């Protein structure tokens, strides 16, 4: 049986002591252990940023790609081998800023993978500039007169785009987050968990305390109303709900592609005969 320790990596962790990312990492390991997925059977794709470093700090197959481009990288891998179980670790800047276009179009495709957005409401690795999710008016190292754009609400946008699994988690509630990740991985399609994550070095507003004062766990079963989900995702000033906002079954992307029916591309044999037929093809084009 898989143990959480199976995911222990020798590689030195580089996050700041107290960083919310540790909670996310632990929840991931816990979720994988409980889902009985060993390191050899998981592929983690990530972008660049503190969030993007996540897979280095555990045992797994991994591709730590470009800033903002984790989703298309993961999608490519999934198309090549739709049996892959994929988690994507991305930052709020990585996913909603540089990678915003891929975020939207990944949802339209409904690719079967789990996207974890480490939403610390700041650019951590580049030392504290505002991210798309930074609160209006927030003072940062670069926005010294305060942020003047409205914050980006990932779950809300995801819902508007028709996402079938939309959740919010909190790095400070590992058990709950692990559960969300397990549910998300079980869901066959694109699943988003926007994770509230304190950045102890650069976000002096949205601290552990700030979060604990506001966050509450959604009780009971997942609401099956879009409107309710939309309302929950919109909350955030005084009360921040965590849990699954919305879950709806729909065919995932690779299942929509007829040519993938016989099995993953990566395991299909090369067939020179079929190819030759095509090469001979119609001599008149």
């Amino acid at each position, binding site marked *: 049986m898989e143990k959480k320790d199976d995911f222990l990596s020798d590689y030195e962790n580089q996050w700041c002591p107290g960083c919310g990312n540790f909670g996310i990492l632990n929840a991931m390991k816990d979720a994988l252990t409980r889902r009985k997925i060993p390191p050899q059977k998981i592929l983690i794709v990530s972008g660049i940023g503190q969030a993007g470093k996540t897979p280095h700090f555990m045992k797994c197959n991994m591709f730590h790609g470009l800033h903002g481009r984790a989703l298309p990288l993961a999608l490519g891998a999934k198309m090549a081998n739709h049996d892959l179980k994929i988690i994507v670790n991305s930052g709020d800047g990585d996913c909603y800023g540089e990678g915003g276009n891929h975020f939207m179009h990944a949802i339209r495709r409904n690719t079967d993978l789990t996207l974890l957005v480490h939403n610390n409401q700041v650019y951590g690795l580049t030392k504290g500039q505002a991210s798309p999710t930074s609160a209006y008016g927030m003072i940062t190292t670069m926005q010294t007169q305060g942020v003047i754009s409205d914050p980006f609400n990932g779950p809300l946008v995801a819902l508007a785009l028709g996402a079938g699994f939309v959740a919010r988690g909190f790095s400070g509630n590992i058990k709950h987050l692990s559960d969300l990740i397990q549910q998300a991985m079980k869901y066959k399609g694109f699943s988003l968990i926007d994770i509230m994550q304190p950045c102890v070095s650069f976000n002096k507003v949205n601290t552990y305390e700030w979060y604990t004062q506001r966050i509450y766990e959604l009780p009971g079963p997942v609401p099956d109303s879009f409107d309710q989900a939309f309302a929950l995702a919109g909350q955030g000033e005084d009360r921040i709900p965590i849990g699954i906002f919305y879950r709806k079954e729909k065919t995932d992307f690779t299942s929509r592609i007829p040519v993938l029916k016989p099995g993953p591309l990566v395991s299909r044999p090369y067939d020179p005969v079929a*190819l030759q037929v095509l090469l001979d093809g119609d001599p008149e084009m």
Partner: protein
Amino acid sequence: MQKRYVKMSIDLSIKIGGEAGQGIQSVGNLIALVCRESGFYIMAMNDFESRIRGGHSFFQIRISDRPIHAPADRLDLLIGLNQETFDLHRHELKDKGLAIIEGETGKNNKRHITVPFNAFGKQAGNEIYSNTVAAACCLCLLGAPPDVMKTILLKQFKHKSPEVIESNLKAAESGYGAVADIIFVSRPLAEPSPPKGVLIEGSKALALGAVASDCRIASFYPMSPATNILSWMNTFSKKLPLVVEQAEDEIAAVNMAIGASFAGVRAMTATSGGGFCLMTEGLGLAAISETPVVIMDAQRPGPATGLPTRTAQGDLNFVIHASQDDFPRFVLAPGSPEESFSLTQKAFYLADKYQVPAIVLVDQYLADSLYILEKPFKAPNIIERFIVTDKDIAVPKDYKRFALTESGISPRAIPCAGEALVIVSSDEHTEDGHMTEDGNHRNAMVDKRNAKLPAMTDEMNPPTLVHPDAKILLIGWGSTAGAIHEAVCLLRDKKKDVGCMIFTDLWPFPAEKVKPLFSVKTKSVWMVEQNSSAQLGCMIRRQTGVAWTHSLLKYDGRPFYPQEIVDAVENQEIS
């Protein structure tokens, strides 16, 4: 590509012009098909604007009893679906050339005949059939028996409704009738012989090269003149394990291809210069992650949007140096459908073997032109993938994706295929793939990547040579091959001591192979390129020290005609 030059007894050039939306390309294809069926060689190019209706576009076909590889600049026949075609192109007609132009019958003169294509089309059912009328006129003049045309028409429209077929046949008939009593300079199609090969478009040859490489993912964002390559692949994707995915942008396209390749299949993307800009960061990702990927860049004039539907060779410098810092890559530039097929396969093979990105540099002229392919394409028996699995690895759990080796190539495993964990980062890394800040590891990885260069350079073929010790040496690359070769023949016919050197394998530049090819007898070295700075010339100078003396640079978005090259060389000789 080195073709022996045999004098042609038949060499006809025909231009069919009109507005976008008038079906010029269909006319063209029909004529091309009948010529092929009748055993002739053809070479045809498409000239069109970046719009869907209106404006001016043309199809120009050259017909011969010998293989041909370039268009000709003077016309035997000009068919105008509108008057504008005549106004724009009448000066291209040979002295004995004939123009058949839309207009009321009656105001004919011997070299300029008007035919009411539109009216005949309407009579056949709809004005849109005017193009079939025009095609029929043309084929009639060329001597094609009506039933040959009919057979081809029926094949082309086999999926259409009986009314459409009926109308087309009617239109064809009226076209034949309109010019039945005109005698054209030559009626080659009256004497058919067996077909010499299949008709092929450059973009189809590229797409076939990709599937013959067992490419299984092609991600892309539409961009002229690359889109047709993907359209072909899309057609093939119904019959092979191949997914063609339209991405939200070019950044996604290249990252998808890299992700797919990482996961274990051959993958590619295709675009033009503007899209390539957006792929440059991904190119660097492929490089540092040592993930094979093939990128086709179908060039068009730039910068920026430039001339979307025209041809150019202006991206050579860019693709060789694209993305920050140094890393190895391949750049191959085919000059014919045959090379499109073979070099695309070479690109996939080399990308896999060396775990580097490979760029296939083509252009609108090559992609959108039609050719006769004499030797059928053959599917390779096996596809060598250079991928390892647990059983090839001593201790799979200690697998290191970037293990240092003398060749610089590390055994490549794929993720989730066994015990070996595959760890890859776009940050500089140690052998196990994890990020590092260490200067020594950094040096080791740069050296490892660069260590591939000698073997990569060995893979590069030297340029094709024709009379390399001639007094005048023409140098070119990629799609201008045909025009330059023919220009050499034409000039030699005129007793000029001219040769040529045509590159396909451009990077890593095989300097040691190229240097000895230059002869002391050569007095003038001409760069013949479709850019404004002689990009290959600069590269040759940098890599070999050999400086060009003359240049013929064409950058108006139109392909070279052999005669243009001949004229330029002759004019220089005089002055």
